[in-house]
């Protein structure tokens, strides 16, 4: 094993322990998506079959959206602990060790992928019990695609935490981008329900492509342009945000 993989593993373990010590986050991480399923799904049921609404079981449309929300939430939480670590000098201390800055970032990113995967599996299991149609091959690719989305959100959130350095500023930015990003991705309601200008706006949102690809994969349609574009956009976003986050770690100052 190279020093880099050892370091990544060490940082992943450290972040995982940090999460396990605060079970509140784990519980909220599980309950929020289940609440979406329980409270939002009945609302959608009345829309199903209406104009603009995709065919199929309501859950087949809604579950991939909830999965994207879980991935987004798991990733965007990364920035807060980064600020505590800046304030207590942990990052400064680690920056004086020979540890790779990318490994430092990846420790958090991998932990967040785990934070997406666990509730993701639970949602799929419960959704299936209530009528969601499972397509195994598509489902595996769906998890892979959304792991990339989690990674991109996690790296971006870490970078923002390192650059903004203040809890208040980070909260303002994260909540500020959350609404347009999630709404314009058609996560809860398909954008096809909206007017043309809304659909056009959706196309400049990278998450829109993730949601489109997620719906296709969830429906078992694997080899098509939508899925390809989804992976391309998410892969690029992950690469760019990892580069950004690593750079932020290289320069981080209290």
């Amino acid at each position: 094993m190279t020093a880099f993989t050892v370091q990544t593993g060490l940082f992943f373990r450290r972040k995982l322990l940090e999460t396990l010590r605060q079970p509140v986050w784990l519980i909220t991480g599980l309950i929020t998506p289940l609440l979406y399923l329980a409270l939002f799904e009945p609302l959608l049921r009345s829309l199903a079959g209406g104009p603009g609404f995709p065919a199929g079981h309501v859950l087949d449309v809604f579950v991939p959206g909830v999965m994207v929300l879980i991935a987004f939430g798991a990733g965007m939480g990364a920035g807060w602990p980064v600020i505590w670590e800046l304030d207590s000098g942990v990052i400064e201390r680690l920056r004086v060790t020979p540890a790779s800055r990318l490994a430092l970032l990846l420790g958090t990113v991998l932990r967040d992928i785990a934070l997406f995967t666990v509730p993701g599996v639970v949602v799929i299991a419960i959704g299936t019990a209530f009528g969601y149609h499972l397509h195994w091959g598509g489902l595996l690719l769906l998890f892979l695609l959304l792991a990339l989305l989690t990674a991109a959100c996690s790296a971006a959130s870490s970078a923002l935490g390192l650059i903004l350095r203040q809890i208040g500023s980070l909260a303002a930015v994260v909540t500020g981008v959350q609404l347009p990003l999630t709404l314009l991705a058609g996560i809860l309601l398909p954008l096809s329900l909206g007017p043309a200008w809304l659909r056009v706006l959706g196309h400049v949102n990278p998450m829109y492509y993730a949601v489109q690809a997620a719906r296709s994969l969830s429906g078992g349609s694997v080899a098509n342009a939508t899925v390809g574009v989804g992976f391309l956009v998410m892969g690029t976003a992950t690469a760019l945000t990892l580069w950004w986050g690593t750079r932020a770690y290289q320069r981080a100052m209290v």
Partner: protein
Amino acid sequence: MSASSVPPTSAPSTAVPAVQVSGLRKSFRVAGKTVEAVSGIDLTVAAGEIFGLLGPNGAGKTTTLRILTTLLPADAGEARVAGEDVRRAAALVRRRIGYVGQLGGADRGATGREDLMLTGRLYGLSAADAGRRCAELADVFDLGALLDRAVRTYSGGQRRRLEVALGIMHRPVVLFLDEPTTGLDPQNRANLWDQLRQLRDGGTTIVLTTHYLDEADQLCDRVSIVDHGRVVALGTPDELKRRYSADTVTVTPEAAPDLLEAVARELASAPGITRAVAEAGPGGQASIRLTVSDATRAMAALFDALAVRGIPTRAASVAQPTLDDVFLRETGRSLRDAGPAAAAGVAAWAGVAA
């Protein structure tokens, strides 16, 4: 390479300075204004010494340390640590140095053992080696009972001990500490001084910043006094005190002020005395104040002069110079006074380089 192939004239590795800095500069942009935190620092730290950067808050000590520990790039100048350039060979420098920052850097949620093990493994120790080193340091720093408790529950002194242990987990050649005793009670402070001396005796070079005069005086082998981003004085504490100021002898004889003035005039040219003045004290009690280069000879001359005139002495005292006298002489203000004003300056750009 065999030992015989080394030319006899080559210096042993201990002769390579632990730190070599020349013309170091660093400025920050703060609220549209450029503040120069380090304005041309030169210094050399020999291997195996405890070197102190003494100065008020905002003098540029922390910024200098951050440049030396590869945390910040300098704007200009050169800095070599443990034989390597901090900019061009940052990775090598990081392997050879340890750093204990002002904030400490212990992970509050983790246990002391987790922190130490992680640090050891980041430096490439195997889990077994890191475990052994962890036990060793727990012993030295009296952390044994605390190791498996969350750092959050440690007292200030306990946490500082852990943080120093973290800094030397990998046996660095040079250890940097930024205000290591700030906030410690006198006992913990004295303990830390002992531990740092032991490290030095074991061959580690130690570079620390402090704004405590007594710390610089008692702990450091050599001190550089830093003010406004420049080194204003450099030497051993004794050298500095001797070079920049002298002992002061004050006697309060029982005699009329005009008689004392005559005595003072006579003493001004006596051996060992650089300056002699008669001063009127409170309640009309006059005294003679001597600035001396050699206290023993000065005292002899003084008591001779008084004895010849049959003047009895009521009180006499000798005051040794302090590093504050040196600071006062170099900067025109006392280190004690410099604190708050300089601190206000720092607060204005604390976000960048406090």
